[in-house]
């Protein structure tokens, strides 16, 4: 993007305190992890100010300053904490140098509209920092898990070998455990059986319910709607207790009177319970899509002689498909992540992945759980990316611009 606003150098009274604040902020983390937060803030602020003063008054050469800073912080990091700290040092050196010049040369104004007041400029960047912080808080716990899943030890600990980036500290043995351990494999298989079937049931029933409930002539539709989405509102542990007793009776009847196999009945119970949990998500997303659905289309279809079923599949369904798919995705994730209900309703032969992770976490803190978590994060990313790509593709095919 081209510069919108001509830029000018800023006074030291702005540059130095801001650079000091940034340096102090990073110093806080380093200091806290080494014993004294206050000392860290002081040293960080002083070093940042000294750096900025050095570029501006002594070196007057941006590139030279850059490489000097990167080298200095990298060396400091290496001296204190080995290779891993050196990498952090290099990155920080690059950042603090860039930040100092960004402020000093007034580059932060370059891409903003010329008529913004300083307060608006400040808010513009504060807003971005807040968003970045929220994003960091959301994503860091997930990122921390990933390197730990390659731990060569059986604990949730960054070992000294790992911090030195020594290959001996890393291993794929937890992944190997996941793929060779019967318990993990069976629970993974169970999750892959239960979640899709429960999703298909929730999507079919939920879509039908949403279409029915959006007809204005259905009596008591608000009450029915409230009951249908209640599994989402009632605390899970309460639904789970109720479901336990209810499905025990059903299960006994199916085993005793119908003479069905015990394991099969177990799957039926869990699938039905999960379908019930997934239905509200489908109802809500499909109802929301139906709001934008033009009713005259169904009347037009009927006018041309299509029966209601044909109308549904040929006219209504393609138009509300995005809502159905996202509802189905929610239903799938609900079932795939669910641990409380399956603990109550299921027996050990229906042990799902979250159940196995739950007991694994409580009884033995094994990094296999982290390996599984990493794999699941990968699957989720792939799943969401695929759905999004399909959505864009279908919109392109229908001539809409992707949004």
């Amino acid at each position, binding site marked *: 993007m081209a510069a919108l606003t001509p830029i000018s150098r800023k006074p030291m009274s702005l540059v130095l305190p801001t650079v000091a604040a940034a340096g102090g902020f990073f110093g806080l983390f380093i200091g806290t992890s080494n014993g004294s937060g206050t000392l860290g803030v002081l040293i960080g602020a002083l070093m940042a100010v000294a750096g900025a003063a050095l570029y501006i008054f002594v070196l007057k050469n941006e590139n030279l300053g850059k490489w000097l800073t990167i080298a200095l912080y990298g060396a400091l990091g290496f001296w204190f904490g080995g290779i891993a700290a050196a990498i952090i040092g290099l990155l920080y050196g690059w950042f603090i140098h860039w930040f100092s010049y960004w402020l000093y040369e007034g580059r932060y104004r370059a891409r903003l509209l010329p008529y913004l007041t300083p307060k608006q400029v400040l808010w513009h960047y504060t807003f971005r920092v807040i968003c970045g912080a929220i994003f960091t808080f959301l994503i860091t716990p997930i990122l921390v898990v990933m390197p730990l899943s390659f731990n060569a*030890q*059986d*604990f*949730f*600990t960054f070992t000294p070998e790992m911090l030195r980036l020594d290959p001996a500290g890393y291993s794929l043995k937890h992944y190997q455990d996941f793929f060779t351990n019967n*318990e993990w494999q069976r629970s993974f298989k169970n999750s892959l059986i239960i979640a*899709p*079937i429960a999703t*298909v049931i929730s999507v*079919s029933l939920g879509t039908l319910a949403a279409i029915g409930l959006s007809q204005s002539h259905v009596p008591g539709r608000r009450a029915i709607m409230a009951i249908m989405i209640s599994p989402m509102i009632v605390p899970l542990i309460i639904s789970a207790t109720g479901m*336990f*007793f209810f499905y*025990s*009776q059903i*299960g*006994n009847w199916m085993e005793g009177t119908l003479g*069905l*196999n*015990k*394991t*099969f009945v*177990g799957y039926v119970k869990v699938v039905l319970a999960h379908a019930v949990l997934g239905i509200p998500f489908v109802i809500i997303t499909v109802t929301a899509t139906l709001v934008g659905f033009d009713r005259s289309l169904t009347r037009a279809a009927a006018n041309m002689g299509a029966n209601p079923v044909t109308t549904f599949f040929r006219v209504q369904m393609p138009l509300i498909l995005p809502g159905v798919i996202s509802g189905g995705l929610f239903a799938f994730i609900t079932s795939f992540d669910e641990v409380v209900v399956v603990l109550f309703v299921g*027996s*050990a*032969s229906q*042990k799902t992945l979250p159940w196995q992770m739950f*007991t*694994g976490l*409580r*009884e*033995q*803190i*094994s990094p296999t759980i982290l390996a599984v978590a990493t794999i699941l994060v990968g699957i989720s990313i792939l799943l969401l990316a695929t759905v999004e790509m399909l959505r864009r593709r279908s919109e392109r095919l229908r001539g809409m611009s992707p949004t």
Partner: protein
Amino acid sequence: MKTKLTALAVTTALVAPAAMAQEMTIVSWGGAYSKSQLKAYHEPYSAKSGVTIINDDSSAEAVAKLRAMNEAGNVTWDVVDVVAADAIRLCDEGLAMEIDADTQLAAAPDGTSASEDFGDLLVSDCFIPQIVYSTTFGYRTDLVGDTAPTTICDVFDTDAYPGKRALEKRPINNMEWALLCDGVAKSDVYDVLATPEGQDKALAKLGTIKDDVIWWSAGADTPQLLADGEVVMGSTYNGRLFAVIEEQKQPVAMLWDAQVFDLDGWIIPAGLSDERKAQALDYIMFATDTQRLADQAKYISYGPARASSAPLVGKHAELGIDMAPHMPTDPNNAQNTFLYNYEFWADYRDDIDAKFQAWLAK
């Protein structure tokens, strides 16, 4: 697609009953302990009988779940591994089946009857003891300075051993240790603990280190905390510490002083169908014979419950180290021990639990 899935489900339903071999669900504690049972009991039993064994790691909530299952008339467990105290409760509530040791358990190879072979460890009519384990302390050898702790009272000495300690989040064991280190003689501990003043005394002693305690509730917590160096010392089951020291090679050592012995074993839930009951009894007969109990000690450092198994305890199956010195019952380790006092805690548990939880929240 939808019809295909339905068709698949229906086919599975029709095929499943014919193809499925006999199954049984065995409930245990998970982790290294379940693994030792898998190697020593489940695998040989499945090979012998063709029964598929499914593990359910739910022993921690066995009492509550068995109550609920019984109420719902839907008992899905066949054999359950519980600690002796839970077995006594389940037996009293009629949730576990009574076992006649001499007719339903295997005799020792030399002909000694099972009831004699297990001896005093048969603490309940429903309980088939399996192992003797102990709750004891481990400490970080690199964090305790030059003099390693040698007695239980070093846990309460924050001057000599500064740093956090991990203690279990329940009064049992902690109260006994506190009194012992508050000058109460070992023989008087339970008499003192039976009085409200004695309970206050124990809590006051625990209060001296309360700020330095991390409370754990799962057996895996203390090993993790020790490995992290978050705590200097912590109590847990001796088998967990064995895994930390010998298998994971962490800088940790055992403090066997004032270890508390407890028993763990099987119960069979009441209300099984005749067919499942016969299956469960057959498994129990096999899994608690002399050789099987001795085999389990190859995988985990818990002492077999039968007297006749002790001489058969050999080397660790994977590490090849002699297991006898790692047993809680080894004479060197068992110089100062407690046996979990079932009667006392059955009578006082609820009161002291309430008091302890209130004290924790203060």
